[in-house]
């Protein structure tokens, strides 16, 4: 990659720049600033969209009373039962059980506090389901295909 070919498609880093390796006019390698590259912006956005889709689905299930609020808050932190189990130090099967509304409703304060701490919420927030899913697909303004 030559220095003049280093893509400058803003996206992932906000106003910031990352650096990459490119050749200058003399054929020597230099660190060149890059605002981003469309293929990466696209792949990143698709990953976020997949997470958002999943979150909307889980929110719907939780609203309908088929999943506990914990399932929603877990997904919002991009976690699954396995990862949340590792964070809380609980067995995976226990976390899975707690995704069922009836079982979640009976949890004691201590266990709720443990989940809340990991998920960066208060116990009250953990037990509540927000009206609408809080989707955070970071803004990526994609410049139209170049190259």
């Amino acid at each position, binding site marked *: *990659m030559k220095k003049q070919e280093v893509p400058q498609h803003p*996206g*992932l*880093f*906000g106003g*910031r*720049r*990352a*650096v*990459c*390796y*490119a*050749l200058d006019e003399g054929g*020597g*390698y230099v*660190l060149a*600033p*890059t605002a981003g*590259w*469309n*293929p*990466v912006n*696209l*792949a*990143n956005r*698709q*990953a*976020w969209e*997949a997470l958002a889709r999943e979150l909307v689905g889980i929110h719907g299930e939780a609203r309908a009373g088929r999943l506990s609020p914990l399932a929603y808050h877990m997904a919002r932190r*991009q*976690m*699954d039962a396995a*990862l949340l189990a*590792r*964070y809380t130090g609980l067995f995976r099967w226990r976390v899975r059980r707690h995704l069922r509304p009836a079982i979640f409703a009976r949890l004691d304060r201590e266990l709720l506090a443990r989940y809340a701490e990991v998920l960066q919420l208060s116990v009250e927030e953990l037990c509540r389901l927000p009206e609408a899913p809080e989707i*955070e697909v*970071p803004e*990526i303004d994609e410049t139209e295909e170049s*190259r």
Partner: protein
Amino acid sequence: MSIPFVHRQAAHCESGATANLLRHQGLNLSEALAFGIGGGLFFGYLPFIRLNRLPLVTYRKGPGGIFKAATQRLGVRVEGRRFRDPSAGMAALDELLDRGIPVGAQTSVYWLPYLPPALRFHFNAHNLVIYGKQGETYLISDPVMDEAVLCPAEDLRRARFAAGDLAPKGRIYYLTAVPTVPDLRRAVRAGMGEVCRNLRNPVPLIGVRGMRRLARVIEGWPRKFGERRTVQHLGHLIRMQEEIGTGGGGFRFMYAAFLQEAAGILERPELLDLSQRMTAIGDGWREFALLAARACKGRIAVAEACPELGELLRRCADGEEALFRDLAGVIR
């Protein structure tokens, strides 16, 4: 308190942190040189390790490996610690900072508030240097950022003690003794030798064999997964290869930069040719990402793109196999 630590932006976190820590002790190395001496270049297709529930593909060796190998080969003495108890881990960090020692740390990216939101996924092999503390805020030189940043203590604690695959367990590392005149030539050759071995090794999922395996696997994705899931896998590959921290082309350009620098150090001009070939291979990897992105965007059907992607990958594998055979010849 704050240590006068010079922040230098790098393409990759671990080689950047390594180079910056060495430089702080008066050993002025570029990031590419630290990467090359550390034998950082790698390829691994590791489907049993999952990242966001997708198979891990890595273009560099495991977390901590570059720092360890680079410092060892340069004769630098280091100390590394992990902690079971987060409070003990934070206390140990503060104590080192009080002694004026900048500290490298392995962290998750998810919990670091200063990183751009788009990059914050659960990935646990990030590296940064902590060089000061003011109240409950740490001063951090994160190699991928364009300037030094601040991070609240609570967030840093979470990031250091993140759970999941590659959990950092509070790992910190720092230099204790640096030789005034390290044997650069020997270190460079050792780093090259390791990469030659790793990329041309007999293990099926590692090195050029791993690339060829992945090429075969990709060709099967449209049938196995269908459109949507294939697109997800392809997008994941693009991100592993290009999203922040590889310097482009899955570290291949960084390695080409290293070969160029090494040509001067070892006084072996033939390494310049190898550097050019490495650049061409890096361009091949970029081409792969570009085509994968076209498939993700629906500009080309996945059933059509995947065989072509497999072919591109095999071309990269062939190029690297020949290159590392020749490189092994140069350093023999």
